[in-house]
C-alpha cells in the first residue's frame, strides 16, 4: 500500500475502513431536505450539489441540517442500495450518528485540515475510523 498523499485528522468516528470517491460539499446535508431517497440524487433545488449522486461515495459535509429523519433514512437508503460509504462531517448532530450506526455506515465529526481546502470531488480517499483519519490515495483524473 502506497503512502497517502495527505491525511485529514478526525475528532470522532464510527465504522469499518472504507475507500471510495470523495464528494466534497460547501453546504450542509439532510437526507430529508436535500436527498431523493429513491435515487440517491441530491435533489433540493439550489443545493450546491444538486444533481450529484451520493451512492457509494465518501461524502464530506461541513454541517448537518435539520432533522430527525436520518435516524431511519440512512438504514432505508442502505437497504435500497443507494447509500454512500461514509459521511464525514465538520459538525454533525446526534440524528446523523444514530442513523449511521443503525445502518452500519461510516460517520465522523470534526476535521483538520478542512477537506474543502485540500480535497476535490472525484479524489479517491480512504477513511479509517479506528485511526481517526481520512487519507487521500489519488487525485481525480
Amino acid at each position: 500500500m502506497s503512502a497517502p498523499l495527505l491525511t485529514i485528522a478526525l475528532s470522532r468516528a464510527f465504522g469499518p475502513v472504507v475507500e471510495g470517491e470523495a464528494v466534497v460539499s460547501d453546504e450542509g446535508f439532510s437526507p430529508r431536505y436535500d436527498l431523493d431517497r429513491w435515487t440517491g440524487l441530491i435533489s433540493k433545488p439550489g443545493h450546491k450539489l444538486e444533481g450529484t449522486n451520493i451512492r457509494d461515495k465518501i461524502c464530506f459535509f461541513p454541517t448537518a441540517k435539520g432533522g430527525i429523519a436520518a435516524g431511519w433514512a440512512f438504514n432505508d437508503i442502505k437497504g435500497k442500495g443507494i447509500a454512500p460509504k461514509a459521511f464525514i462531517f465538520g459538525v454533525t448532530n446526534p440524528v446523523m450518528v444514530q442513523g449511521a450506526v443503525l445502518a452500519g455506515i461510516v460517520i465522523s465529526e470534526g476535521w483538520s485540515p478542512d477537506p474543502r481546502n485540500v480535497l476535490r470531488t472525484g479524489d479517491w480517499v480512504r477513511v479509517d475510523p479506528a485511526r481517526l483519519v481520512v487519507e487521500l490515495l489519488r487525485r481525480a483524473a
Partner: protein
Amino acid sequence: MLDGAEGEAVRRALAYQLEVGRFFGAEEFVEITNAHMMGDIEVLGDTGLAFLKEMRDLGARARIPITTNARCIDFAWAERLGQDATECGKEREVIATLADMNILTTDTCINYQTLYQPHLNERVAWGDTGTCIYANSVFGARTNFESGPAAMASAITGRTPAYGFQLDRLRIGSFIVDISGAALVDLADWGALGKIVGEGHQSYYAVPVFTGFRRPPLADELKQLGCALASYGSMGMFHMVGVTPQARTVEEAFGGAVSSAVERMVIDDAGIAAVYRRFSLGGGDAKLVVFSGPQLSLFEMKTLSELFAGRKVARGTSCFVTTSNGVISAARKLGYMQPLEDAGVAVLEGVCFYILQNLSPMREKNGWQNMVSNSAKIVNIIGAHRFNTILRRTAECVEIACTGQLA
C-alpha cells in the same frame, strides 16, 4: 441487559445505544421518563419496517411511555390524495407493529402541547427536532435529538446515553440575539426570526439567548421559533431571558458572567421584512397553501377557522391543514372545523404535509410549483420534493388560498 438476560431485543437496543454513546464520549447512561419517536413508512422504507417487525418478534417492549410523531398517511384522505395503496397497507403494518411493542401511536409532532409536558431537568428522549428544542428550552427538560431508532431504543431500555443536552455544560448560551426592535406580530414572524438565527449559526451546539422581547410570547410562537431554529440551524436549545426557565437573567443563561467577546445579533422589523422579500415567487402560481409542519394547536385552528369563515378556497388552489386527532376532536366540538370544511380546506389528521407518502408525484399531478405557508420550518424542509416555497404571514396565506393570487 447486555448479557441478554432481559432478552435479545433489550440487548440489541442497549448495544446500539452504547455505540452511539461511545461516538459522543458519553460516560454513563441516564434514566428517562418519556420518549417520543418518528416512525412512518415514508421514512422507514421496507428496511425499517422489517427492522421494527424483527424487534417486535424478538420481544421488544417499551418500559416507559413512548408516543409517535406525525406520520405520512391519513387513511381517510389517502385515496383522494392519490397515495399508494400498497404503502397504505405497510403504514397499517407499521402502526400495528409499534402498538405490539407498547408504543402509543398518537401521531403528533406537538406532543409538548397536547400529550406530555416534562418538568425542569426531567430527562426524556424525544424526536422530532421541534419537540426536542421545545422540551430543552421552554420546559427546561433534557433531551437530545433522538431519532426513531434512538428514541425506540431508549424506551426499550428506559435510559439514554448522557451526552449533548443531557449535560449541564452544553446547555449554556453561546450568543445573544436582541429582538427588542422586532414586533413579531405573526407566527410566521417568529419562524422568520428562527430562520435568520439558525441559518447564521448552523450547529447543534449553538444555543442562542434571546433578549428584549416586547411581550411574553405565546406557546405557539415559541413553537414556531423553536422549529425554525432546529430546522435552519439544527439547533437543540435556546434561551429567552425572562421566559424560559433556565434564563431568569442573561447571566443564568450563560452560566455566569457574560464575556464581552460574546457575539451579539440584533434583529428588528426590517430584518424580518427582508426574510419575506427574499422568497422567490417562482412561476407566480398560488395553487398550494399549507398550514403544517408543525401540526396546529387548537388556538391556531380557532384563528384559521375565523379567517376562513364564509370564504372559499379558490378554484384550482388546494389548501391543507394538518393537526392531531385530539386537536381535531376539540376543534370539531368547539365549532372550528365546519368553517374550514365549508371553505374547502382539507384538514388532515395525524400527519405532516412534508412527509406525506407520494408527495413528489402528488406535486407533479396537481401542477403545484409554489408552496405557500406561514411555517418557516416547512418552507425549508420540503425542498427535496422540489417545491418553490414562499413564507407569508397567516392572514396573507388565507388570502392567497381564497384568491388564488400571490399577494
